[in-house]
């Protein structure tokens, strides 16, 4: 299995503007969030990237992608029918190939010892295991309502891999405790999606079936749950951190994380200390 295509969803009503925000990347270069995400995909060996956008956003996104614009394909999600539907919009683009999927409102920072970017780590695992893999991060139960969450068991002798048995979208901790406990994780922690997946075309079939149903919205998590029942589907505990730029102060935290991970770490820290020292409470 070779993965060459990536799908980035950025059509959500409240997240349309996020990929257009500008940040200073670890290499001190000012980039839009979109460009950082696209570079994450390209660095993972992707040859084509499809961005699912809201109708009319094409030009702004093309500009934001800068030099990578020519390698992008834009697909419009014409009706707001949910996250799963947005992924489904890229069906034609991916054809019968497995694909890398990233969300447009997250930025990722790798903690891999060899400095492998997050998407690359995942693609390598998926290619090695020859199956769909979702990146996950142990997350405290209080944050569960923000993420899709998986339940399952560790794959023997592969410490960061889990066999996914169930997937629930934004579960309550009560639900999580009843069906998503993963042996070996700290009490109160669950495997929540990191925002990067390598998926097989099977998920598109499931999404299409859902889209034909009566429900107004199509969600990704139930489709992934169904996929877990039909084929081998793994979770990979990513060596890295994700930053949701869609939440309050999310962009600020992501920027700080990027800056503290680069050569300007000392300078940013000094400015933070100064801010703290002149804070109102003092």
């Amino acid at each position, binding site marked *: 299995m070779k993965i060459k295509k990536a799908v980035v969803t950025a059509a959500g009503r409240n997240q349309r503007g996020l990929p257009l925000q500008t940040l200073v990347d670890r290499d001190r270069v000012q980039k839009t969030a979109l460009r950082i995400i696209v570079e994450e995909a390209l660095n993972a060996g992707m040859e084509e990237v499809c961005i699912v956008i809201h109708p009319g956003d094409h030009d702004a996104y093309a500009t934001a992608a800068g030099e990578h614009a020519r390698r992008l394909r834009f697909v419009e999600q014409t009706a707001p029918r949910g996250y799963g539907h947005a992924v489904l919009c890229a069906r034609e683009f991916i054809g019968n190939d497995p694909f890398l999927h990233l969300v447009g409102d997250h930025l990722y920072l790798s903690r891999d010892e060899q400095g492998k970017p997050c998407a690359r780590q995942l693609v390598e695992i998926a290619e090695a295991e020859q199956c769909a893999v979702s990146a996950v991060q142990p997350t405290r139960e*209080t944050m569960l*309502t923000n993420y899709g969450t998986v339940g399952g068991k560790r794959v023997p002798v592969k410490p960061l891999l889990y066999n996914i048995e169930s997937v629930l979208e934004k579960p309550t*901790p*009560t*639900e999580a*405790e*009843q069906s998503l*406990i993963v042996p070996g994780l700290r*009490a*109160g922690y669950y495997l929540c999606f990191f925002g990067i997946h390598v998926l097989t075309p099977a998920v598109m079939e499931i999404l299409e079936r859902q889209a034909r149903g009566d429900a107004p919205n199509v969600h990704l998590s139930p489709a992934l749950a169904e996929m877990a029942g039909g084929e081998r589907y793994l979770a990979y505990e990513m060596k890295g951190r994700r930053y949701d730029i869609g939440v309050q102060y999310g962009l600020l935290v992501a920027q700080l994380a990027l800056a503290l991970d680069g050569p300007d770490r000392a300078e940013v820290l000094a400015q933070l200390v100064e801010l703290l020292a002149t804070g109102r409470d003092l």
Partner: protein
Amino acid sequence: MSELTNIITSADPAVRDQSLDAFCRRATLAELLVECAALDAFRRDSDNLYERVRALFFLYAIHRFHLLTKPGMKSSGLVPFAGYEHLLQRRFEEAISSFLGAQQEQGPNETVSSALAEAYHSLGFQTLADQVRRSVRTVRGNQWMFRMGHPSDQPLRVRPELLGRGASSGGGSDKTGFPILRERTPVRMDLSHSAWSDIFFLGMDFPEGARVLNVSIDLAVRGRDAEPRPPVESYFRVIDEPVLRLTSVDLGATAEITELRDVFDFAKDYLGLLKAAIIASGILPPGIEGSGQSLTDLLTRLVGPGLGIEVVSNVNDIPKGSRLAVSTNLLACLISVCMRATGQAKSLTGQLQESERRLVAGRAILGEWLAGSGGGWQDSGGVWPGMKLIQGVLAGEGDPEFGVSRGRLLPSHKILDDLDAPPAVREQLCDSLILVHGGMAQNVGPILEMVTEKYLLRSEAEWQGRKEAMRVLDDIVAALRGGGKPREAVHRIGETTTRNFFGPIQTIIPWASNFYTETLIERARAAFGADFWGFWMLGGMSGGGMGFIVAPEIKRQAQDQLQEIMLTTKNELQHALPFAMDPVVYDFGINPRGSFANVLTLDEALMPMGYYALHLPQWLRMEQRTLSPMRRAELQRFGAACRTRPELGGMNKVLFDRLLPQIKRDTARGGRATLEELLDRFGFDRAQHEQIRADLKSGRIGLAQNRMPASTTIEDVQRDDIVDATNEQSLAAHRQRGIEAIKAGEIGVVSLAAGAGSRWTQGAGVVKALNPFARFGGKHRTFLEVHFAKSRRISRQHGVVIPHVVTTSYLTHEPIEDYLASRDQGAAANSGVATFLSQGRSVGLRMIPMARDLRFAWEEMPQQLLDEQAQKVRESLHAALIGWARQAGEGGDYTDNLPMQCLHPVGHWFEVPNMLRNGLLAKMLHDFPNLKYLMLHNVDTLGANLDPAMVGLNMSLGACLTFEVITRHVHDRGGGLARVDGHVRLVEGLAMPREEAEFSLSYYNSMTTWIDVRQLLDVFGLTRDDLANEAAVTAAIRKVSSRIPTYITLKDVKKRWGHGQEDVFPVAQFEKLWSDMTWLPEVSSRFVVVPRMRGQQLKDAAQLDGWLRDGSAAYVEKLCDWE
């Protein structure tokens, strides 16, 4: 390996289920002591929880019941105070070590064994309670709530449907408020009476035997409600103020909570159940307690800034004690509505899914534990629909209980389908079964402890009883299938439940039945003849919720008749048994849906009617413009509904009554007049009362002032200070002299029956002497009957008439007089005993206690610490009661209760002087001119009798007063026989200068006193002839009385309200005590040590079972001759 540890650890049921009693009967003292040592070592080492617990209960039983029957066991010893303190503080391991040390030092003796028994017993229950608590916390779905510590941790959000105000969401315009989520839940009845197999401990150790048939039912009170409906409901809505507003419509209580700590303060008001639900549903998770965080911040996370939550509970006026698990199902209903509202259930409305019901049940157990109450695991059965078989489940891998207990905390529920219980049989059952509430409300806590204990000990008869109860359940399950004959099926069910009640239930716990219940069954059987198909006991104990099964064609008429029978019987027994209310007959129907929810929007978005009766008067008193827009809109909505909805037709009157001040003729004014009347009638001494009040308020008297000066020396008595009468042989010499005195008519009996037996019924104001407390000679007998039966036996043996006085007080006189009158008519064969009534002439008016005294009692005196959560609830209750005392006015008259509950007897010192003052002694001396001695005893000293040897011994001692004392057991608190600064005296516990002083005393006062009439008259400075001179007698009594100390005591008094609700208040009263006669130098006193069974007192109904099992009941029976 010891034989007993082998029984405990054996995998073979035939060995494991062996009875302890059988082994102990044949073992010697030395063998038992060796087994005790082995069991103690075993329980310290064993990893298995239930093996440890069983070893603890074995140790308890050996020390409590078996060692003392073995030759060579000493009767007297001393309990080390340090060990006792450990016991009170629930440091059981330390207490056991201390007591074992004392046993080693003093040699095995009854006193230390009683302390060891208590410590092992408590540690056994503590271990079980800890395990249940751990299991409750580890139920999947409950764990996360204990890890929340900050508002930003709160992952729950109120569902958007409940936040939508706009017309699009169905909520009306922006100003009309939020939709209301309403949950309605049936209650449950237990068709099988499970022989209490739904106790958690039992289900977790013996899941195979833990089975119940549980039916969800709707209820109506016959004659009041139109048709049965789910009896409990709860409401949830978002409000436009950042507060948590809780209202219990049924208890008439409401609070707006703004501080987090108030949510965890369960006993502060009547909203404990709602608070427990808010916590157990995760809205304010238990982990956040004590975090110091802000409630507003938490509400902001849950519902958004500026908003709050309102939760309302409503019970369809079902009286407390119905044995239908009303409160657990209400808790489950509240938890369910809160869970739905916060997205913890898939559907906002309709039925719950099976996994959700299980979660609600688990949370309800958590809630009950939090609020310090308790129930069985079947109690939240109302959440499920229809009829279901609930059974214990073996713990499997993956269960939190696996490897700890055999069974799981939560049982499984199998809903019966039409094959298991065809519709025709269900219908027939509804047509035949009459559900009632008999009116008694009793604490079933001690019964549940007894069941657990007997199960763990595998006592022979009880274990057979349990097996039989399991067969009963099988029979009922089989009968329910109907076999195409519904009528026969229900008839068979009736026979089976009756067999259950008279068989296994009473074999396991004889106290599950009572005189009232059995009289009802007898009368129902007589009234309905062949159409009476059976009796069915619901829940913990009978007298409250019960069922009668009759032929369907007479059901309507039988309901009316039963109402009549119950009311008549209750009226006959109201002084003898604790009734909380008049009996009630229900109509009921099987609920096919279980817990069910709806969203009420627009004009339907109204709370229950009682909610408005509670809140509206306050809203109307406020300026309209100060009401929030939401509340104004609600007022309009409610106004419109009142005009159009017929069920709200009665609202006008309710509101009118609430808004306008009214004179409560029946209660307040009438009651006060009656209290005044009563005080006059009973000879209330107002001058003395005011003096006591002034002394109390100024701090001259009080609990702390009851004590003797700290410099007083209290020592144990010496050998010469007592006469040992425990040895049959030494007594034999006195027997002949005693017989002669009895035959000569020199001896009489005085039974003290003026008290209400506060501990017996927790302050219910019942006449203890008339309480039919146990079965003797095949019938339930009262305390008084037992005392007469003992006199009758002596009379028959010696062919003389025994004068027998019963002293009474304002509280007990009329009921006892009526009782004696009816008895005399009924039993002409009552020859041999001449009964006299000595009417009390003294009464006190209870006072609101001083906060100082409440603090002294609760904070200075050693208190039994409760289990962690229960202790928290108790402390909160104490704070509330201290607040009550301050608010109501410390030292003020206590008048806010039934008049009789406001009065108090003034201590038993007055009872003998009363006989002088009311002319009774003079009359007796006239009727029995040879009368020289009186044996005075407490009504609860059942073993005291006119044993000729004791009579002779007393005569030979020649003292004015001879007191019978017994060796002390750990629970015998309240003073004892001591050398006080070198003089032998009886010291009341109240007067002990130091707590520990009591623990150096070997003997406890049984209160049984032999009085030499002539010498007593001398003490009062009177002669036989003076007794006719009332003025001289009164002056003499006053003179002696002034030298007897006055103690201030706190007594619990019940106030009943609503539908069987009860509150207990501590009130202050004063008393003078008989044993203080030993302090008068002119009174010659002697002290005789008698066998424990003769001198022990039955103070608490929880003692009954031990009393029956340790042979005390048989001892008493032997002394009696029944009519």
